[in-house]
């Protein structure tokens, strides 16, 4: 249990980017707060009660006045947590796909000093849980990320990641929207800090599948990523 392992809780901040997640955000934040983590929810300009529900569940709130995208929201959350002394930073999806129980598994290698970057992978042990259509899309994302970042991973667009403070300090996401998931791997790879993949479970619900990435998003991700590379 995380509560028996203070090193896996003290100084661990959970960063959640949320947009129109009022229906589920309290269920996502509640178990994390109960486990003793500091939770910051970046409400990315939602028009619903996401911020109010997250605050009631115990999260700190950073609120974008206008919607800027998941990458922009994550960067704001990382910045906030770093300013408040975070030792280990965990990015966590707002749609209920992840479980609080996986956080210690990710934080473990960083707390032990064996890695600075721990990336959650749903394909190490739980590939069968992934719907077939989503599996194809994610395999393509893995291949794309491998080509552009030079890092061979089993999962690329998994929102569950843990970073040491020194790793998070070197992340400066320029891609505001979904392409940040490839960009963050690219930036982390360039730090040269030790990286591990950790098996985590992703729970697909009708809600999360409706809100998640779809094939139509792939072209936009590639375009955003390449334009960013070309314009440097």
């Amino acid at each position, binding site marked *: 249990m995380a509560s028996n392992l203070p090193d896996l809780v003290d100084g661990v901040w959970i960063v959640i980017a949320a947009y129109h997640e009022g229906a589920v955000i309290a269920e996502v934040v509640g178990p994390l707060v109960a486990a003793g983590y500091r939770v910051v929810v970046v409400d990315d300009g939602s028009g619903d009660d996401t911020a109010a529900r997250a605050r009631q569940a115990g999260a700190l709130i950073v609120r974008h006045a206008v919607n*800027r995208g998941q990458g922009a929201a994550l960067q704001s959350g990382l*910045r906030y947590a770093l300013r408040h002394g975070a030792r280990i930073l965990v990015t966590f999806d707002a749609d209920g796909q992840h479980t609080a129980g996986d956080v210690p598994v990710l934080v473990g290698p960083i707390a032990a000093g064996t890695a600075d970057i721990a990336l959650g992978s749903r394909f190490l042990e739980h590939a069968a849980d992934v719907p077939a259509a989503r599996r194809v899309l994610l395999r393509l994302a893995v291949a794309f990320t491998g080509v552009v970042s030079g890092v061979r991973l089993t999962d690329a667009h998994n929102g569950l990641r843990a970073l040491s403070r020194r790793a998070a300090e070197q992340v400066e996401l320029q891609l505001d929207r979904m392409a940040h998931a490839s960009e963050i791997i690219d930036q982390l790879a360039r730090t040269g800090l030790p990286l591990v993949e950790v098996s985590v479970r992703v729970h697909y619900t009708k809600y999360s599948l409706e809100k998640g990435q779809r094939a139509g998003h792939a072209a936009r991700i590639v375009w955003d990523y390449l334009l*960013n590379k070309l314009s440097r």
Partner: protein
Amino acid sequence: MRLFQLLALPLIAAMLAVSVRNLFKSPSRLMVSLFWSGLWLATLVAVVYPDTTTRLARALGIYRGADLLVYSAVLAFIAGFYLVSLRLRQMSREITLLTREVALLEAERQKDSPPSARA
């Protein structure tokens, strides 16, 4: 003088006059004003002496002056689209940075205020 020239020349002359005036009025934007002055001057010459585009086209290995204008317009459109994309991206980046700073400042203010005062 043809009807097209009668219609186009006053407009082109007016735009050229504005560009030349900007050359002296806004020295900080000298290159931009020079570009537009040159473009309007070239347009003026092409309308007054239509054969100049044909001569230029043949010098460049293109048969017709009209083809030269079409090719130039396509290239200018592609270059313009790319430059506008970069500009939009830069503006988007600036909006994000501004949004982030405001959000972080507001978060600090909320954290320091009593719960009853929070929105």
